[in-house]
C-alpha cells in the first residue's frame, strides 16, 4: 500500500483557540478602562457610574440584587424552555407538512412583531397575579429566533446524505434521527444562544406588568429615581448574566458539536424555488389566520370589550367612527415621528456594522479582540441600555437613533464578519496570483461573499429595531408610537392602542418582507447559489 501524505489542520486549530481565549480578555480590559475613565470624568454630570462605583454598589446591595436576579432568571428559564419547545414543535409541523412552512413562519413573524407595550397588560389580565406574563413574554421573545435557524438546520444537509439513508431502504424517521437532527444541532444551538438573553429581556419586560419582584422591578425603580449607580449596576449585572448564559450555551455547544455554532442565523428570504402564487396564497392565509386567531382568542378568553378590541373595532376606529380621521392623524403622526428615529438608526447600525467588519478584515489583528466582545455585547438587554443611552446622550433624536443603531449594529457586525471570512479560498488564491492588494480583495471577493450574511442580519434587525425604538420611546423619551401606545393604555383609549399595535406589527412584518425583496434582487446577482 502506498503511503499517503495527509494534512491535518491541528496546528492552526490550537492557535485559533488560544487567540480566541485571549481576545475577549483584551477587549474587556479596554472596555473597562475606557468606562472607568469616562465615569471619573463625568462624576458631576449624574449620568455615568464608573465600574468601581458599580462594583461598590453591587457589593453593598448584593442580597437585593441576588434575589431579584434569582426571580427573573427563574422566569426567564421557564420561558426559554417553553418558547424553544414551541419552536421545535412548529419546526416539526413544517417538516412533516412542508406546504405549511410559509404560513407558519409568516404567523410566527407577525406574533413576534407584536409590541410588548400592548401584550403585557392583556397577559396580566389573562394570568392574574404571578409569573404568567413574565414567562409568556420570555417565551414569545425566544421562539422566533429559534424557529428560523432550526428550519434551516433541519434542511442543512446535502441531498446525498438523504439519498444514503434511502439507499439502505430507510425512511423519514431514520433520516430525521441520523441526518436532520444532527445537522440541525449547530443551528439549534446558535438559536439558543441568541434566545437566552432574549428570554431574560422578555422576563424583565414582563415584570413591568405589575410584578412583586425581579430585575425589571428594580430597573423601573432605578429609572424613576434617577439612581445612576443602581441603573448602571442593574445594566452591568443583566449584561454579565446574559453574556454568561450566552457563553455557557456556547460551551455546551462546543462539547456536543464539532465546530462553533454558525453565527449567521437567517436563511435567504426565500429558500427553494417557490412560485409567486404560493407566496400570495401564504400571505392571504397568514392574514386570515391572524385575524381569525385574534377574534377567536378574544372570544375564547371572554375578554372584556372595554380593553380587548377585535378586528372590527380597529376597522371601526380607523375608518368608520366619526373621529376616524383624527385617530388616523394621531397614529400617523406618531408613526412618522418614530420613523424619523427608526430609519436613520436602522441604516446607521447596518452601515456601521458592515463598515467595522470590513475594517477588521483589513486590520486582522483587531478582529480577535473585537469579535468576541461584539458577540457578547449583542446580548445586552435593551431595557437596561435604554436609560443609559438616554442618560448619556439625552432624550433628543440623537439618543434614540443611537440606541436603535446599537441594537442593529452588533448582530450586523457579527454576521458581516462571518460573511467576509467565508470568501472562498480558491478565489482568494486567484487574486493572490495577480498580486491584488487587500482592498481589491475586499471589494472584489469578500464583500460579495458577505452579502447573504449582511441581508440576513438586515432582515432580523427589522423587528429588533422596532422593539428598540418603541421601548425607548415608551420608557424614556415619551415620543412617537411607543409613547402613544403607553399613553393610550393609561387613558383607556384602547381603540388607538389596538390600532397602533396592528399597524406596528404589520409595518414590521412588511419591512422584513421588503428587505427580503431587496435581498433577492441583490443575491440574484452576487450569490445566485443562495436562491437556487
Amino acid at each position, binding site marked *: *500500500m*502506498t503511503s*499517503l501524505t*495527509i*494534512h*491535518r*489542520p*491541528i496546528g492552526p486549530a490550537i492557535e485559533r483557540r488560544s487567540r480566541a481565549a485571549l481576545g475577549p480578555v483584551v477587549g474587556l480590559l479596554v472596555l473597562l478602562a475606557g468606562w472607568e475613565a469616562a465615569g471619573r470624568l463625568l462624576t458631576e454630570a449624574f449620568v455615568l457610574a464608573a465600574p468601581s462605583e458599580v462594583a461598590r454598589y453591587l457589593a453593598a446591595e448584593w442580597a437585593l440584587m441576588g434575589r431579584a436576579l434569582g426571580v427573573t432568571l427563574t422566569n426567564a428559564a421557564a420561558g426559554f424552555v417553553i418558547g424553544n419547545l414551541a419552536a421545535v414543535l412548529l419546526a416539526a409541523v413544517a417538516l412533516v407538512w412542508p406546504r405549511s412552512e410559509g404560513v407558519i413562519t409568516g404567523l410566527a413573524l407577525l406574533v413576534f412583531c407584536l409590541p410588548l407595550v400592548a401584550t403585557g397588560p392583556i397577559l396580566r389580565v389573562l394570568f392574574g397575579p404571578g409569573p404568567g406574563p413574565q414567562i409568556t413574554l420570555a417565551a414569545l421573545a425566544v421562539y422566533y429566533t429559534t424557529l428560523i435557524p432550526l428550519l434551516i438546520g433541519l434542511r442543512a444537509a*446535502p441531498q*446525498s*446524505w438523504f*439519498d*444514503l*439513508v*434511502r*439507499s*439502505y*431502504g*430507510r425512511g423519514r424517521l*431514520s433520516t430525521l434521527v*441520523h*441526518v436532520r437532527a*444532527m445537522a440541525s444541532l449547530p443551528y439549534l444551538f446558535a438559536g439558543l444562544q441568541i434566545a437566552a438573553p432574549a428570554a431574560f429581556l422578555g422576563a424583565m419586560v414582563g415584570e413591568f406588568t405589575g410584578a412583586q419582584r425581579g430585575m425589571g422591578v428594580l430597573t423601573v425603580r432605578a429609572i424613576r429615581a434617577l439612581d445612576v449607580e443602581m441603573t448602571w449596576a442593574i445594566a452591568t449585572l443583566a449584561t454579565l448574566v446574559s453574556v454568561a448564559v450566552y457563553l455557557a450555551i456556547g460551551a455546551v455547544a462546543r462539547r456536543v*458539536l*464539532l465546530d462553533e455554532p454558525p453565527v449567521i442565523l437567517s436563511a435567504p428570504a426565500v429558500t427553494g424555488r417557490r412560485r409567486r402564487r404560493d407566496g400570495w396564497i401564504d400571505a392571504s392565509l397568514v392574514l386570515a389566520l391572524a385575524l381569525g386567531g385574534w377574534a377567536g382568542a378574544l372570544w375564547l378568553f371572554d375578554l372584556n370589550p372595554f380593553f380587548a378590541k377585535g378586528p372590527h373595532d380597529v376597522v371601526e376606529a380607523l375608518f368608520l367612527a366619526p373621529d376616524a380621521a383624527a385617530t388616523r392623524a394621531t397614529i400617523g403622526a406618531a408613526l412618522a415621528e418614530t420613523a424619523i428615529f427608526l430609519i436613520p438608526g436602522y441604516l446607521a447600525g447596518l452601515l456601521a456594522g458592515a463598515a467595522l467588519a470590513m475594517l477588521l478584515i483589513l486590520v486582522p489583528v483587531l478582529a480577535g479582540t473585537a469579535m468576541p466582545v461584539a458577540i457578547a455585547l449583542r446580548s445586552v438587554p435593551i431595557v437596561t441600555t435604554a436609560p443609559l443611552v438616554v442618560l448619556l446622550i439625552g432624550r433628543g433624536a440623537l439618543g434614540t437613533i443611537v440606541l436603535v443603531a446599537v441594537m442593529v449594529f452588533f448582530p450586523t457586525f457579527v454576521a458581516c464578519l462571518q460573511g467576509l471570512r467565508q470568501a472562498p479560498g480558491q478565489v482568494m488564491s486567484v487574486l493572490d496570483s495577480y498580486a491584488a492588494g487587500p482592498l481589491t480583495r475586499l471589494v472584489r471577493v469578500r464583500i460579495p461573499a458577505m452579502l447573504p450574511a449582511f441581508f440576513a442580519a438586515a432582515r432580523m434587525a427589522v423587528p429588533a429595531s422596532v422593539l428598540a425604538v418603541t421601548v425607548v420611546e415608551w420608557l424614556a423619551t415619551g415620543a412617537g408610537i411607543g409613547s402613544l401606545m403607553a399613553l393610550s393604555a393609561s387613558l383607556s383609549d384602547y381603540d388607538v392602542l389596538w390600532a397602533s399595535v396592528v399597524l406596528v406589527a404589520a409595518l414590521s412584518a412588511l419591512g422584513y418582507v421588503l428587505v427580503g425583496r431587496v435581498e433577492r434582487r441583490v443575491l440574484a446577482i452576487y450569490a445566485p447559489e443562495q436562491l437556487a
Partner: protein
Amino acid sequence: MERDVTPPPDVSCTALAKTFEGGTRAVDPIDLTFEEGQTTALVGPSGCGKSTLLRMVAGLDTPTSGTVEIGGAPPVSTLRQAGLSMAFQDPSLLPWRTVRGNIELALKLARHRADPAEIDQLIALVGLDGFAETRPAELSGGMRQRAAIARALATRPGLLLLDEPFGAVDELTRRQLSQDLPRIWEARGTTAILVTHSVSEAVQLSDRVIVLSPRPATIMDDITIDLPRPRAGPAARSDAATALTDRVFAALSKGMAERSAPMAAQ
C-alpha cells in the same frame, strides 16, 4: 466471520427513460440488463445522464417511463432488504461521525450486526489504517472517498452501485484501489455497476463496458472486456487492452458527433 450474503441479482431495465421537470431529457428509453455477478461500467461524457441511470436503478429517482427490476422485483424491495449499497460521487460522510462511525451507521441502517474486526479490515483495505477514529473534516478528499467505498462494501450488498468512486483519489492510490477493491466484490460474486468517465478505469475494472452518448443518454456500444485479471501493470498495456480502449473511445467520439455538430470537430 461469515454472515448472510445477499445473493447477487441481475438488473434489468426495460424502456427506462427520465425527463426532468424542466423538460430536460436525461435518459431516452433504454433497454439494458446487468448480468448477475458481473461488473459493468457505464462510460459517457460529463452530464450524459449516466448518474441518473444509476440513481433510477437504486430507486432514488423515479423513472418517467419504463421499469427497473432487480432480481425480478422492483428496486424498493431490494432496498428494503438492504441488498444494495451505493457509493456516491460526493462521499456523503456524516461529518459528526468518525470513519468507523460512518461505516457503523451504514450497518445499522442496513440492519446488519457491526463486527469491529471486519470494519478494521475494510478500513485497512482502503488504506485508511490509523484513521478509523478520525472525522471526515480532517481527511483529504481522496481519503473521504475511500472511506465511502469501505462503507458501501461493509453491508455485503448483492448489488453494488459506484458513482465515480475514485474521482478525487490521486493517481497512485487509484491504481492500487483498482487492483484491490474488485477482488472483494468479485470474491463475493457481487453484481456491480460502475459509473465513470475514465475509459482506462472502465476497461481495467469491468467485465463489460457500456458507452453512452451525451444527453439524452442512449447506448452507443456494449463491449465485453474479456481480459485476464489482474489487469494492472503490463497487462493494462497489452494489445488486447489497447484495442478495447480504442473501441470505447471510438464509441464515445461517435456519440459526441451525433449529438452535437460543433463538438464533432474535436
